[in-house]
C-alpha cells in the first residue's frame, strides 16, 4: 500500500467513526424522545417556547443585556402574566364550572331527548346496511370511555403537569446553550459534510422559527375573532370557546371544524334560535376566511414550500402514526425532510457535476 493510499484510508476511517458516533447520538436522542412518556410533547413545547422567545432574547441582548438575564426576563414576564391571568380568571372559571355542573343535567337531558328522537331513524337507516345497533354501541362506548377516563385521569394529570413543567426548563437551556450544543454535535460531522450540515441546520432553524411563529399568530387571530363574536351573540363560556378554537386551529383541515363544534353545541343546547346558530357558525367562518386571506398565503405558504397534495398526504400519514399530535407536526416535519433531501441531493450533484 502506497503512503497516499494509506492516508486516504485513514481519512475514510476517521469520517466513518465520526458518522457512527453521530448516528448513535441521534438514535439515543430519538429513542428517548419516543420512548419516555411525555418527552416528545415536552420537547415540542420547548421548541415552540424557544422560537417564540428567541427574537425577544436577541433584542434584549442587542441592547446590552447579558444572555442569561435576557432569557430570564421574558420567562419572568410570561410567568407573572400567566399567574395574573390565573388569579383573575380563576373565580370566573370556577363560577363557569359550577354553572356548567348545574346546567349539565339540562344539557344531557336535551341531548338525551335529541338522541331518543333520532336514534330510531338512525337505527332504521343503518339496519339497511347490516346488523348495526347504534344505541348499544354508543352505550358501550360511553361506559368504557367514562371508566377509562376515571382510571386514567390521575396518570394523565401527573403526566401533563410533568410535561408542562419540563417544557420551559428545556426551553431555557435551548435558548442559553442551544448554540454550543449544536456546535459540539457539528464536531462529530465528517469534514466533507460539515459546511453542508451547518447550512442545513441554519435553514431548518429559520424555516421552523417562521412556521411556529406564523401558526401562533394564526391561533391568536382565530381566538381574537371568535371571542368577541361569541360574546356579542351572548354564547356562554365565549373566552373558553375562543381558546379551544385557537388551539384546535393548529390541527390542519379538520381543526377548525373541531374548534367550531363545541360553540355550536353549546349554542344549540342553550336554546339559541336558528338565526343565532347561523351567526355563531358565521363567526367561525369569518375567523377562517381572515386566516385564509392573510396568514396562510402571506406567511405559511412562503415558509413551507410543499404542494397541496403533499400536504394532505403527510397529514394523513401523521394522523395514522401519531394521531392529533402527528397531524400538528406533520407539515413542519415534511418540510424539514424536503429541505434536507434537496440540500444533500444538490451537494451530491455539485460534487459529480
Amino acid at each position: 500500500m502506497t503512503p497516499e493510499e494509506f492516508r486516504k484510508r485513514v481519512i475514510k476511517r476517521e469520517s466513518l467513526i465520526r458518522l457512527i458516533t453521530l448516528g448513535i447520538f441521534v438514535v439515543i436522542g430519538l429513542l428517548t424522545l419516543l420512548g419516555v412518556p411525555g418527552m416528545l410533547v415536552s420537547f415540542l413545547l420547548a421548541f415552540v417556547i424557544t422560537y417564540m422567545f428567541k427574537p425577544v432574547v436577541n433584542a434584549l441582548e442587542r441592547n446590552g443585556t447579558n444572555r442569561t438575564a435576557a432569557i430570564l426576563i421574558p420567562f419572568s414576564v410570561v410567568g407573572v402574566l400567566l399567574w395574573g391571568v390565573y388569579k383573575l380568571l380563576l373565580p370566573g372559571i370556577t363560577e363557569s364550572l359550577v354553572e356548567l355542573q348545574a346546567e349539565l343535567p339540562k344539557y344531557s337531558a336535551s341531548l338525551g331527548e335529541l338522541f331518543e328522537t333520532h336514534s330510531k331513524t338512525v337505527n332504521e337507516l343503518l339496519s339497511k346496511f347490516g346488523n348495526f345497533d347504534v344505541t348499544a354501541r354508543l352505550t358501550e362506548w360511553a361506559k368504557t370511555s367514562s371508566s377509562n377516563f376515571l382510571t386514567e385521569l390521575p396518570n394523565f394529570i401527573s403526566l401533563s403537569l410533568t410535561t408542562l413543567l419540563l417544557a420551559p426548563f428545556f426551553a431555557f437551556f435551548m435558548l442559553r446553550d442551544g448554540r454550543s450544543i449544536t456546535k459540539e454535535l457539528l464536531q462529530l460531522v465528517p469534514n466533507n459534510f460539515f459546511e453542508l450540515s451547518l447550512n442545513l441546520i441554519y435553514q431548518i432553524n429559520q424555516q421552523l422559527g417562521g412556521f411556529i411563529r406564523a401558526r401562533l399568530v394564526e391561533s391568536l387571530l382565530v381566538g381574537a375573532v371568535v371571542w368577541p363574536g361569541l360574546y356579542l351573540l351572548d354564547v356562554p363560556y365565549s373566552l373558553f370557546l375562543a381558546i379551544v378554537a385557537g388551539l384546535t386551529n393548529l390541527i390542519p383541515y379538520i381543526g377548525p371544524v373541531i374548534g367550531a363544534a363545541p360553540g355550536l353545541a353549546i349554542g344549540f343546547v342553550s336554546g339559541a334560535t336558528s338565526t343565532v346558530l347561523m351567526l355563531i357558525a358565521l363567526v367561525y367562518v369569518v375567523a377562517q376566511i381572515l386566516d385564509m386571506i392573510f396568514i396562510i398565503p402571506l406567511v405559511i405558504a412562503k415558509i413551507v414550500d410543499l404542494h397541496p397534495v403533499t400536504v394532505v398526504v403527510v397529514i394523513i400519514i401523521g394522523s395514522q402514526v401519531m394521531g392529533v399530535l402527528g397531524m400538528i407536526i406533520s407539515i413542519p416535519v415534511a418540510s424539514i425532510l424536503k429541505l434536507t433531501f434537496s440540500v444533500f441531493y444538490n451537494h451530491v450533484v455539485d460534487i459529480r457535476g
Partner: protein
Amino acid sequence: MQYLWENIFKRLEREQNISSILAQNILFRNLSKSELRFIEKIIHIRKYRAGEYIFRQNENGVGMYIIAKGRVDITIIDDIFIDPSEEKEVVVTRLEPGDFFGELALVEDVSRRSASAVASSDTILIGFFKPDLLEILERDPGIGVKVIFRLAEVLGRRLKETTEKISQLKKEIRLLGELHEVNTSDS
C-alpha cells in the same frame, strides 16, 4: 494522569493560539478583548489530515477558513484539455498559518467555490460562516458591522489586485501582439 494534564495544557495552548490568530486576522483586528471572546464562542475549529479536501471546486460554500496550523493548497481543475479524462488539478497557491480563504462565500447569496482547498499537511482551521455572521449581526450588530466593514475592505483589495492583474495581462497581450506583428513583417 500525566496524559490528562498534557491534554488540558495542549487545549489551553490551542485556545490561546486561536485567540491570538483571530486578533491578528484583518477581519477581527478592530475588536476589543470582550468582543473577541464573543467571536471565539461563535467560530468552529476543524482538523484535517494531510491530503484531505476542505472543499472542492464548484461545491456550494457558506464561509471562510483561517489557517491556525498547517498548510493548505488552493487548486483548480485545469480544463484546457478537450478530453475530460486528461483533466488534472493544478496548485495555484500554498497558504500558511494566519492566511485565510473562501471569504467571498460570506457575502454571496449562493456561492460556488471557484477552486478546491486541500490540506497539504495535518491542519487546524478556524471556520467562520455566513450563519455565524448573521447571528453576530442579530445578537450584537456593533461587532457585526465592524467585521463586515473589514470584510468589504478585504474584498475591495482583492478586486483592486484582480483589476491590476487584468491590466498587466492586457499589456502583456498587446506587447506579444506587437512582437508577433514585427516578426511576421520581418519574415
